[in-house]
């Protein structure tokens, strides 16, 4: 069942089409990466989904309703948007107390979410003195206050150090294993690649693709790195078949377009020893860049 449905959504600001006829759906209990370079229209799309920005045309629905028609919305959807900043003069705890009161969170929840995002010790400090990473944690805590089934996170990894990114991944995985639906945006695929089931890719306001990670990598090519004393011979054999091989050093070749099994059998048949084979998964980042760059070229030629 789709819990988030975006249907022919368009937003035009004066002179600029920020989001152009975008359609996608997010299934219940899935973790979906919402990807695209900066300025692709991700934030505007999320803001339309959350009723903060009025679409020029099209609809964005959560559980079949426009956000404004959801009763007790914070119990259904938790959102951490890049700019949903707290008043700098307030302590983290007071910021959460206000959100808890506004959203109708159950008592005691403020302390729970502070603990969940490791901000308990900083709870009574003014938010104005927080680092970007701490603000991101506070935004996540705010999103989780009313224990929502759906989470919408806009660039949650921004400003986090490597340790923070690792922490975020673990948190997202835990949320997903609870059966929650997560839509998480990022302009860096690798930040979310380990966590998401599928991706929605946006570029220049238009939908590039909605696909599972497997579908995305299926089109991509795998790279084999092989160490063999007869590098030139093996490369010649591979090139004679479907694959493409390149000798990179006296005893090393790189092969694409063939599996390690195919190359191994070929080598065995001709008595070529293989010392080492490593398979490099198709580079998601490359695929991502190719998909979004292609779109930009279309933009230019149009």
């Amino acid at each position: 069942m789709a819990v988030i449905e975006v249907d022919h959504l368009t937003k035009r600001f004066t002179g600029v089409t920020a989001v152009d006829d975008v359609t996608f759906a997010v299934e219940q209990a899935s973790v979906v990466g919402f990807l695209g370079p900066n300025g692709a229209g991700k934030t505007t799309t999320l803001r339309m989904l959350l009723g903060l920005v009025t679409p020029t045309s099209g609809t964005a629905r959560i559980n079949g309703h426009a956000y404004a028609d959801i009763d007790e919305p914070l119990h259904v959807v938790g959102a951490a948007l890049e700019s949903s900043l707290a008043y700098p003069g307030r302590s983290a705890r007071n910021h959460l107390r206000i959100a808890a009161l506004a959203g109708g969170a159950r008592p005691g929840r403020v302390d729970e979410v502070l603990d969940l995002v490791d901000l308990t010790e900083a709870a009574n400090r003014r938010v104005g003195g927080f680092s970007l990473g701490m603000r991101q944690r506070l935004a996540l805590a705010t999103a989780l206050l009313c224990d929502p089934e759906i989470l919408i996170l806009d660039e949650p990894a921004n400003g986090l150090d490597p340790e923070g990114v690792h922490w975020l991944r673990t948190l997202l995985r835990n949320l997903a294993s609870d059966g929650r639906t997560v839509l998480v945006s990022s302009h860096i695929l690798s930040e979310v690649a380990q966590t998401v089931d599928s991706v929605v890719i946006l570029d220049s306001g238009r939908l590039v693709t909605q696909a599972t990670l497997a579908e995305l990598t299926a089109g991509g090519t795998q790279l084999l790195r092989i160490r063999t004393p007869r590098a030139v011979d093996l490369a010649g054999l591979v090139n004679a078949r479907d694959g493409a091989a390149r000798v990179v050093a006296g005893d090393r070749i790189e092969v694409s377009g063939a599996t390690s099994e195919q190359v191994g059998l070929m080598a065995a048949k001709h008595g070529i020893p293989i010392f080492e084979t490593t398979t490099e998964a198709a580079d998601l980042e490359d695929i991502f860049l190719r998909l979004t760059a292609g779109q930009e070229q279309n933009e230019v030629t149009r």
Partner: protein
Amino acid sequence: MTRLIRTELLKLATMRLTYGLLAVAAALSALFSLLENNMAGTGGSGVPAISTADGLRTVTTVTGFAMLFAAMLGSIVANGEFRHSTATLTYLATPKRTRVLLAKVIASSCAGSFFGLVAGIIATGVGLAFVAGHGDHVALSAGTLVGHIAGAVVGAALLAALGAAIGSLVRSQLVTVIGLLVWAIIIESLIGGLYTATRPYLPYTAATTLAGTKLGSAAFGPAHGLSGGGPLPFVAGAALIAAFAAAAALIAARTTVRRDIS
């Protein structure tokens, strides 16, 4: 709706600005009631001695500053959310934006009424202290003094509501705060000085007359101390300010409040 109003009050209670504005309003009330007291009975300023009813009233009804600060607080309650982008969270919790507007107007009135109460007590306290110090007879009845304080509470509450409505209409905090000051200190004084008959209908002046301040006493410029004309009856004056607030809130709900939050 109760939850929304409580949320807005909690926001106010957790802002240092609220206490700062209250402190400044209280200090200005004390300062200016002392100044009026010093001028009272000296002849030059036209303020009668505080042993007289008129003189005492001039000192005990210096509550206009608190009303003006209550209006500024109201405007900040509304558009401070845009200065710090907290409107996003507010509207995520309550997507029905007119309800948020209404809650802000009501919460601002509550906070504003407290500004009026504090200023009324301070000014009355200053007046009574000097009357007692001189060993004079208190020329105003207890009922009148309490009535003036109650009037300050109502006036400040209504101006705070008007401030919140204006703050909802104009998203720039700087523009509304400066605008409110300029309006009360310069524009009302100019209009009131040029067209004396309009004075009872000017919102800041009308609010001060609710608290027993003489028409013109709260004015800063040419209209200060101008005699002639009388204030609107209490209920009419209060209704007038409430109508201004309602009109501003209605326009805000139809225009600014609906705009995109980005």
